[in-house]
């Protein structure tokens, strides 16, 4: 929770975490260019990336592997920032786009929309935003009633998530699209191309920019409305803005990569641990570490069952579910 006083060494450490995380993201992203079923050495892929000569190798790197890495980075950043804001907004350490069912809401909407209007294309993102917004509004409403406990809210969110995931499966089975089930249940950046990046990049940029610009206001979300108002805030407006950012970031990420889970839950906790309580530094750390985590998960997803690819969402779930478990236990003890 935000403290006004922070000591200098901590500050230096936070900068190191943010810069180090960003650099590591770039390194892992570049490394991921050399990993895939077509055996290209890492140096070859880098050379191909930098050369101007058109070649089969170059188009593989530029059109298949690079957009995938960029997309993973964008999705990671979007979900992490959405998670941080959701946790601040609901004052609930268990909040995240996935654990509150927002990802699944976007998934249901987009699956329905693509089936109803197959030529929807990138406009499916709009459907995803509507789905995410509906569930987000419901969860926010529940959290503001104050009657539901921290754990109860998370349980309600997970229940919504389970029901909506079942609905996704049912819809896909009804339309003979069972081959898409794992994607729409777990999420994946396999098969990403530049058009996906073009869909997500503006949303990520806008969401992160607004979050950064308003960081001072969003930091006060964790206070109660009365204190925030006495500090010159308009709590309802700030909260509304935060909710919109959460929905835009999560909805757009789901539209291109499916409901990748747990990134939005665990990255804010890692960030908080590493950089301390200042909201702005937490936000920057999320933007740096979210991409790192999802890129690493995607690399792992390609390696664990090589040459078969595992959806990155399964890897993040395997890593994230135990963390969720620990957080749930701690939420009770606190």
């Amino acid at each position, binding site marked *: 929770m935000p403290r006004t006083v922070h000591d200098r060494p901590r500050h230096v450490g936070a900068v190191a975490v943010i810069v180090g995380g960003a650099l590591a993201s770039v390194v892992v992203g570049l490394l991921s260019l050399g990993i895939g079923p077509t055996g290209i050495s890492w140096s070859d892929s880098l050379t191909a990336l930098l050369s101007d000569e058109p070649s089969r190798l170059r188009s593989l790197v530029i059109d298949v592997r690079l957009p995938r890495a960029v997309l993973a980075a964008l999705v990671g950043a979007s979900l992490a920032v959405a998670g941080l804001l959701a946790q601040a907004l609901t004052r609930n350490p268990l909040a995240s786009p996935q654990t509150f069912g927002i990802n699944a809401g976007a998934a249901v909407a987009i699956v329905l929309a693509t089936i109803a209007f197959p030529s929807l294309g990138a406009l499916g993102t709009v459907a995803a935003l509507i789905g995410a917004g509906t569930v987000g509004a419901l969860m926010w409403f529940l959290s503001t009633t104050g009657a*539901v406990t921290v754990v109860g809210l998370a*349980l309600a969110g997970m229940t919504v998530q389970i029901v909506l995931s*079942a*609905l996704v499966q049912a819809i896909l089975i009804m339309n003979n699209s069972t081959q898409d089930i794992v994607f729409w249940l777990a999420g994946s950046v396999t098969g990403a191309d530049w058009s996906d990046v073009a869909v997500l990049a503006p949303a990520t940029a806008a969401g992160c920019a607004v979050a950064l610009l308003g960081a001072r206001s969003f930091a006060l979300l964790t206070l109660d409305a009365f204190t925030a108002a006495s500090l010159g805030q308009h709590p309802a407006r700030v909260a509304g803005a935060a909710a919109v950012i959460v929905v835009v970031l999560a909805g757009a990420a789901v539209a291109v990569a499916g409901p990748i889970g747990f990134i939005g839950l665990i990255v804010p906790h890692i960030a908080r641990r590493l950089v301390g309580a200042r909201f702005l530094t937490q936000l920057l750390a999320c933007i740096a570490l979210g991409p790192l985590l999802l890129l690493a998960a995607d690399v792992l997803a390609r390696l664990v069952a090589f040459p078969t690819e595992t959806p990155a969402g399964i890897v993040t779930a395997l890593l994230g*579910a135990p963390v969720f478990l620990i957080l*749930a236990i701690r939420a009770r003890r606190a």
Partner: protein
Amino acid sequence: MSTTAPATPTPVVSTDPVRSAPSDGATRRAVVIAVLVVALVGLTLASAGFGAVALSPTTVLDGLLGGAQSFIVQQYRMPRIGVAVLAGAMLALAGVFLQSAVRNVLASPDVVGVTKGAGLGAMVATVLTPPAVLWLAVPLGVVAGAALVTVLLLGIAKIVGSRGATLALVGIAIAALAGAAIQYLMVVYPSYADQAMVWLAGSVYGSTPNDVVFLAIWATCCVPLIIVCASRLDLAAFDDDTQGSLGVAPASNRALFVVTAVVLSAGAVVAVGGIGFLGLLAPHLARLLVGARARWLVPAAALLGAALLVLADLTGRIIALPNEIPAGIVAAIAGGPYLLFLLLREARRHG
């Protein structure tokens, strides 16, 4: 002193079994049970009649006795229904006993991850052992998976306490982990993906007469356990001190309930996978209908579990012709909102 279990969600039903005239309540409950039996038979006939070849109830009965449509009825329709009836009843009873053991209305095997753990055990056994010994390995795997999750859950319950939503949330986290592990194995071993889908989502699709026999044997072996548990269920509703003064050992009772719940849900998972929220819904509905006394609750819950699973399967077959929605998915969509309702009502009461 109340005879309704603390696990009971509402200050249940106007008919307190002790205060109201015994014969009166008993008659009403007997009628409820009879209605449930009739409903189950009706659903069975409807389910057996529905399909690519529509059969009238008389044709179904005729087919059962070896008549004209006996092949369809005996080889396709009835095995499926038999599996649904047995597995539904087993999951519902597992819910009754687990809820009583941890004194938590939310602690049904499907909410707290026991069925997902069992599914993971089945999947691990399937990919690790040669096909020749699968008949043995899969049942061992499910029991091991279900037991492991339960031990983990009870261990955590020692830390966080077993009341309230925390235990359910912990269980859901465990279920998410087990579900992700099943999905992972599905991707790595695509040849088992169809079977894994059953364990992941829950379905009675493709049940064979052998499955019914297997499940019937498993259920029969559980009958003594069920009877013993049922006979101790009423006393288990008292707090530990009262139980002790009544000459009951609460800890060993709870252990017995847990073991029974694990064995019951494991058997159901082998055949149909985890059916979402069935083990939560059936005991709650049963308690609303007949109260918390074991002699009524246990048969009512079993009947409701069976009827609900047959209904879920029938719905899944009708709703998306010519495709089938697995019964587990239908149950999750229908049962999840009930869990939400429970949570919100709880919140309103404390809020």
